[in-house]
């Protein structure tokens, strides 16, 4: 464990030093972060000019939902950005250099290139949401904050596990390079209250493709809608998908045949 922490710290340091080489890019990412949150907030403002609620969610609830969604898909995901290059690693045969290292190959593939610039984008993106949530009246039940934080940690692990499962498919199917874009697009559904969907879709989003757990469950909890079922569900689903990603990865690595021969 200590060894992994040391490696991870070193990878972060490398990423920070690379960041200083691209200062213009850094500024651009911060501006883009602000721009995207502004666009989301304007869209919500416009929609709520014409309705009081969206399937039981008010305006400030929706802001919290968007804030939570980004907390889930942009936080740990940026630190584990390396997994998105797996297709190239397999196609070019450079994955060989990873499996020969004296470290868990899944850990190293996922965390070898932490995207610190992406984290700065994340902070810039979240800031306007935080300001709105502080300045305007919300239905937040602050005593549920510890449970919310626990849910955020779990949903980050869940998201990274889902991403890993999808991208691991590259080991078997060489023509599915951008498979993670499919997951990204579908995950966008997690920005909306699940109650707008028909029951069958809700069932899918809480089981087979559990994107309902990414932001809706944590946000609902902070809004005071807590149940032990959601806590048990959140923990079970996260661990189930995490272990599924481990099993798939280990099977894939066993069956991997280098592209370079």
């Amino acid at each position, binding site marked *: 464990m200590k060894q992994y922490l040391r490696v991870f710290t070193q990878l972060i340091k490398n990423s920070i030093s690379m960041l200083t080489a*691209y200062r*213009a*890019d850094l500024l*651009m*990412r911060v501006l*883009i972060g602000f*721009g*995207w949150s502004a*666009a989301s907030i304007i*869209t919500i403002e*416009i*929609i709520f*000019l*014409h*309705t009081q609620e*969206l*399937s039981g969610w008010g305006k400030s609830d929706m802001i919290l939902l968007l804030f939570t969604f980004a907390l889930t898909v942009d936080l740990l995901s940026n630190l584990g950005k390396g997994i998105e290059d797996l297709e190239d690693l397999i196609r070019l045969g450079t994955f060989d250099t990873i499996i020969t290292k004296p470290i868990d190959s899944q850990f190293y593939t996922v965390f070898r290139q932490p995207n610190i610039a992406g984290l700065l*984008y994340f902070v810039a993106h979240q800031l306007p949401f935080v300001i709105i949530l502080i300045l305007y009246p919300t239905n937040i039940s602050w005593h549920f904050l510890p449970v919310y934080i626990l849910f955020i940690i779990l949903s980050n692990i869940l998201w990274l596990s889902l991403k890993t499962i999808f991208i691991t498919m590259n080991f078997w*199917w060489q*023509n*599915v*390079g*951008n*498979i993670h*874009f*499919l997951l*990204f*697009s*579908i995950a*966008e*559904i997690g920005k*909306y209250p699940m*109650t*707008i*969907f028909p029951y069958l879709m809700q069932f899918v989003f809480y089981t087979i493709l559990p994107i309902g757990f990414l932001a809706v469950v944590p946000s609902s909890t902070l809004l005071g809608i807590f149940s032990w079922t959601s806590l048990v569900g959140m923990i079970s689903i996260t661990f189930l998908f995490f272990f599924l990603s481990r099993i798939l990865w280990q099977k894939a690595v066993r069956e991997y045949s280098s592209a370079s021969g």
Partner: protein
Amino acid sequence: MLNKYTTLINIMWQRGLAYRFTIFAYRIGEIAEMLVLLLMWSAIFTGTSTIQGYTLNEMLTYILFGNLVNTITRNFAAAGIGRDIKDGRLSLFLLKPMKHVRYALASEIGRASLPFVLSLITQLLVVLLFHDKFLYNTDPVTLLVILGMILLAFLLEFELSYLAGLIAFWTDEVDGLYTTMERVKKFFSGGYFPLSLLPATFITVSFALPFAYSFFVPAQLYLKKIDLSMGLKGLGVQLLWIVVLAMIIRVVWKRGIRKYEGVGI
């Protein structure tokens, strides 16, 4: 003369076939996004029959038809051009007996044709799913004007994308910028919601800008929310923008090529 461009289109079509899963994956994602919009607006319409003059069926038709137009007109030339400049591959084109902008246009037509066919099929399937809500407009003149608008919108979108791609002459990190520009374009084209939900001044301005012709205006025309004369005026505005953007591209290309370092040579 035309042969080299048709060859290019053919090559890009073949390349598309090799990456058919990627295209299919994008399509699934787009359908998911569209379904969310349809369901979200259905939820908003619970308890109200009209919003800013739109009935639920009109709103759903707006989303379905607008997205259909958008799948034809949108393009991703910027990223490719940006990569050519960044990686120094542009040097190869400078030696070829064709203008880069024409090469990029032919490539884009070839690249877009397979996703277009797939999009058309899947989009029609979604329309079928909502067939009881979808409003049909069979007026041939209106449909003809819309078709003209779509063709011009394709060219306009290409020019905007090409121009965005040329930014790579001045900066290395452009991917985030392209994605943001895509979002901004979608917002101003009425892709997230009809521009009619915004103040009237905004609509007037958007009619004069090139973005709304890829989604909002054709959908409005289809829904008979604007009359044919407005549609014809729109075609004129589009033509004007095509000329203006072509001139801007010329200037930016000339300045950019002076700055071009040709990495890798």
